[in-house]
């Protein structure tokens, strides 16, 4: 990752993008213990401080469903009908593992940051 502009903004933007992409799945899984449809999930994530582009989130839901981490169903009782997503059993397990990995990774990074601050 080599920033091309003089102030390194492009490099920083790419870095932030990579960082957000890395935790995207975890963030989505964390909000799907209760069923949500695409737009309501996006709102929930944005309200929680993690706005995600619609063009990224909606296909991601489908991919996670294909991978067996989410279940989905059409609710035709609502108007208009909505496709609701929630964690599957595998999704619950994956979420637990990812959350644990995130905490461990976060502790490692925090250690690096603390060491850098104390230098």
């Amino acid at each position, binding site marked *: 990752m080599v920033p091309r502009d003089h102030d390194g903004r492009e490099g920083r933007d790419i870095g932030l993008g990579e960082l957000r992409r890395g935790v995207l799945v975890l963030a989505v899984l964390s909000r799907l213990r209760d069923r949500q449809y*695409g737009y309501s999930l996006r709102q929930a994530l944005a309200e929680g401080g993690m706005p995600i582009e*619609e*063009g990224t989130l*909606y296909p991601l839901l489908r991919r996670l469903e294909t991978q067996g981490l989410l279940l989905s169903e059409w609710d035709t009782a609502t108007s208009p009908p909505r*496709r609701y997503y929630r964690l599957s059993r595998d999704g619950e397990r994956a979420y637990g593992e990812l959350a644990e990995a995130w905490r461990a990774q976060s502790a490692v990074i925090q250690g690096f940051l603390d060491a850098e601050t104390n230098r």
Partner: protein
Amino acid sequence: MMTADQVIESYVRDVAHYLPRAKRDDLAFELRELLRDEMAAKATAAGRAADRDMALELLARFGRPAEAASRYHPRAPLIDPADNHNFLIWVAAGAVVLSAGRPSDGIVPLQWVGVVFVWFAIAAWVRRRRPAGQLHWRPRPQRLPEVASQPATLLAGVATLVFPFAMYLAPQEWWEAASLGRSVGSGLVLTEEFRHSWQRALTLVALGMLAAPYFVATAMRGWRTWSRHNLVFAHLFVGVMFALHAAPMRTLFGRETFGIFELRVANQVAMPIFGLVGGVMMLAALYGGYKEWARVTPAPALRGAVPG
């Protein structure tokens, strides 16, 4: 003027067009509803009714329909992006070779692009199906020009002197010696004009330059950067000179044409051969130049104590 709903419908239809038939309607239905939700929220935030421009602004964030569809249903690229570099090199090198061979026919290089494309597409498909199969990477020993076999470079130098240099210098005598006296009459006797031409003098210099780097490599027990570059230049020099031989020879000032051989038919036979050899030599120079350009400096441990 289209309404916001019509713009969304058009977009959904185009996205669905790129999706597998089994997923098409289901995904289109969901995408349509999601876009309408987004549109309604946008209109509420703007404090006005949704319109065409608002819809276009929303859809711009999704990207082209093909891009949006590829996020829903990613498809493997026909050519592995990691192979782009090699693909372009093969296409360019092949197109140059084929254009040199048949300069009037532009179709052949295009067919070549197709052949290379199909080959790379098959390779990408095979690698995806069998990542550890025949096409996966394997280590290869590094060829180190810094350390060259002395007999091999000496043989190459002598061979260059015997074959192109001596043959060019005195073709009639060379052929008589090579055929052990069963010569072809006087068919390869050079014209007086050619004997004293600048083209012949320069070509002899070029052929000498072609042989010299091999003797240098023999003496130094290997190739140096400058000697490799000299060899590339010598190939190019010889190639250009031989290509000039494919056209009627002309005097330097008077511009009168003259033949290379006394025998008219010998000129007719030889001129295309000179052109072909010139083309091959120029391609060899191109390949040598590419190899130098693409060369990776070997690790000092492999290179030994020989300076680069």
